[in-house]
């Protein structure tokens, strides 16, 4: 990195703004904003009590072409197998190596063949958990890590997501709070993917087609206690 290029840009900005390095009250205000970020205007539909939140999440996820079912923890593995059978999909999947998913009764689905790890180009189906769900727009939030490789969200044609009902929040701001709590203030996992429905494109005559590069099908299993 060239220090001259850096100072050329930063000094240019300061010259145009008719000041030197940011100082005094303006600097304190900017530092305070980073330290305790103020929220923008509240969006009413993101402020619902938990039970209504789940309903709203489901409504918007379906609006955005995802499919959604509810299941008890004991039913998750059976629901995944049934979904694949219903849609004539192979009973094979790449699954995120996460303790949350390991706890479900996969042994009860002997026909279902699972491989734990990152996705390969040849995988047709992936199964992952989710860090959170956002009710406001029916959006899933995925935090990358050893228990959740990013490629599982993207490479396979069909992505099945097991979302705990308790992880559904109102809006983005609550996701940020949850991320700070889990990873520390100012710390983030390598990638946070927020996913709203399957991959799509409108690049040919503005008509929406699903499955441009990412999954064509997004199936969400909401797990209640």
């Amino acid at each position, binding site marked *: *990195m060239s220090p001259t*290029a*850096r100072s*050329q*840009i*930063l000094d240019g*900005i*300061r010259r*145009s*703004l*008719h000041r030197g390095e*940011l100082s005094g009250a*303006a*600097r304190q205000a*900017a530092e305070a*904003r*980073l330290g305790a*970020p103020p*929220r*923008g*205007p509240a*969006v*009413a539909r993101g402020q619902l009590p938990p039970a209504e939140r789940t309903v709203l999440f489901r409504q918007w996820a379906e609006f*955005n072409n995802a499919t959604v079912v509810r299941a008890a923890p004991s039913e998750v593995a059976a629901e995944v197998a049934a979904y694949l059978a219903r849609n004539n999909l192979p009973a094979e999947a790449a699954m995120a190596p996460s303790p949350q998913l390991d706890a479900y009764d996969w042994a009860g689905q002997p026909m279902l063949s699972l491989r734990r790890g990152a*996705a390969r180009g040849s995988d047709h189906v992936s199964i992952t958990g989710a860090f959170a769900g956002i009710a406001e727009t029916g*959006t899933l939030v995925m935090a*990358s*890590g*050893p228990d959740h*490789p*990013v*490629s599982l*969200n*993207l490479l396979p044609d069909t992505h099945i997501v097991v979302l705990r009902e308790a992880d559904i929040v109102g*809006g*983005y701001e609550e996701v*940020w709070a949850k*991320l700070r709590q889990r990873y520390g203030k*100012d*710390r*983030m996992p*390598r*990638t*946070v993917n*927020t*996913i*709203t429905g*399957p*991959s*799509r*494109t*409108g*690049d*040919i*005559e*503005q008509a929406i*087609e699903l499955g*441009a*590069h*990412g999954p064509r099908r997004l199936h969400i299993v909401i797990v209640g206690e």
Partner: protein
Amino acid sequence: MQSTAHDFKHNVDDALADPNLQDSLSKLKVGFSERRRQAAERLPEFEALRDAARDIKNHALANLDFYLEEFERKVAGLGGHVHWAPTAADARRIIADLCRSVGAKTVAKSKSMVSEEIALNDHLEALGIAPIETDLGEYIIQLRHEPPSHIIAPAVHLTKDQVADTFLEHHRALGFTKRLTERNDLVAEARHVLREKFLKADVGLTGANFLVAETGSSMLVTNEGNADLSNTLPRMHIVLASIEKVIPTLEDAAVLLRVLARSATGQESSSYTTLNTGPKRPDDLDGPSQYHVVILDNGRSSVLGTKMQDMLRCIRCGACMNHCPVYGAIGGHAYGWVYPGPIGAVLTPQLIGVEEAGNLPNASTFCGRCESVCPVRIPLPNLMRHWREREFERHLTPRAVRQGLALWSFAAHRPKLYRRLSGLANRLLALFGRAHGHYRTLPLAGGWTRFRDLPAPPAGGTFHAQWARHGGARTRP
């Protein structure tokens, strides 16, 4: 890319005479703008969010150096690298050096208007590095060797049949010998072809919608998922972003995201919004081992603190062009450079000079729809008016226009003369056939009557004459 903005008038003639383009544009008028209206209506807080979005960008611009330094500090703390590029040439050199440092043969690119601005693809190709556009629209126009015609829908000027012909021509060698007729088949074929390229790419290059100073994250909004494959599969991820993309916090991003997708495509949310923060962590199972952010100025810092600063609030949603009657008639290519429509008419003279692009701000009826839909409330007509004034000051306006304006000004300063001349003109026009209520042809007005009739002035003389006849008097406050 090489600008043809100076040739705007010829570009417009070509655009108006292109039946495929006119067919594609007819779909634009109902598609994006209607979907945006519905999305805005579904969110009661939309207008308040637009105000907040404007304020966030204003705050970020007023403290731009501070937030850029903060962003850099956070990226470095995670093992990433920030590179500063004062000019387009600097950015090209930095990116080429990074690609060569890993011996890259191919670069998987997701759509980046800044990369178009710096003509990155030509530069990489000249060095023997193949850039592969992976956004479907960008891929189509890359095959056709065309520039994008819209900032969020680069191939919006093309019909399905044109895409089918292009794919047949270029995919035949890969074994796809059937001409496709259905959109979903075209999408599936592109997916298949590009998937192979993704898996082989050495470098992934993306733009950024926002850079978040608080966390050192680059934020990217897409629908296809191509950007996410670009930043996950190759071993190096390069982010190319201009200086004004930095915002303070994740909370600010939440506000901007709420207005961005709704303004752009009328979606509640785009399919994928991704925050990338540094390279892969030691125990991650995938992700790039190197993460670089190239921050480009290219003339933007000189706009700060001027009347034109508002243009730097732009979040590149494309709503202004989707709602522009001029863009709707001529499409994006006629504007001659990277950024078309009202925002292009404002940005282009700034970035490549008013001498080259002075015509663009004239291509506006000042109807104001662009400003009325802009999610960050950029006063686009005012900014275009500013460029018109600069153009006039610098004597770049055509001589006929200047002389005409001088004549009009001479008369307008002399009310008696003005009334006599306008009365004479009125009587002359009557001679040419007021009876029909319009003129099919008229001397000196061929530019107008070639395309439509010119309405005749109403009977009864000039406005002044009628005003006097009806006993009109000057009203005083």
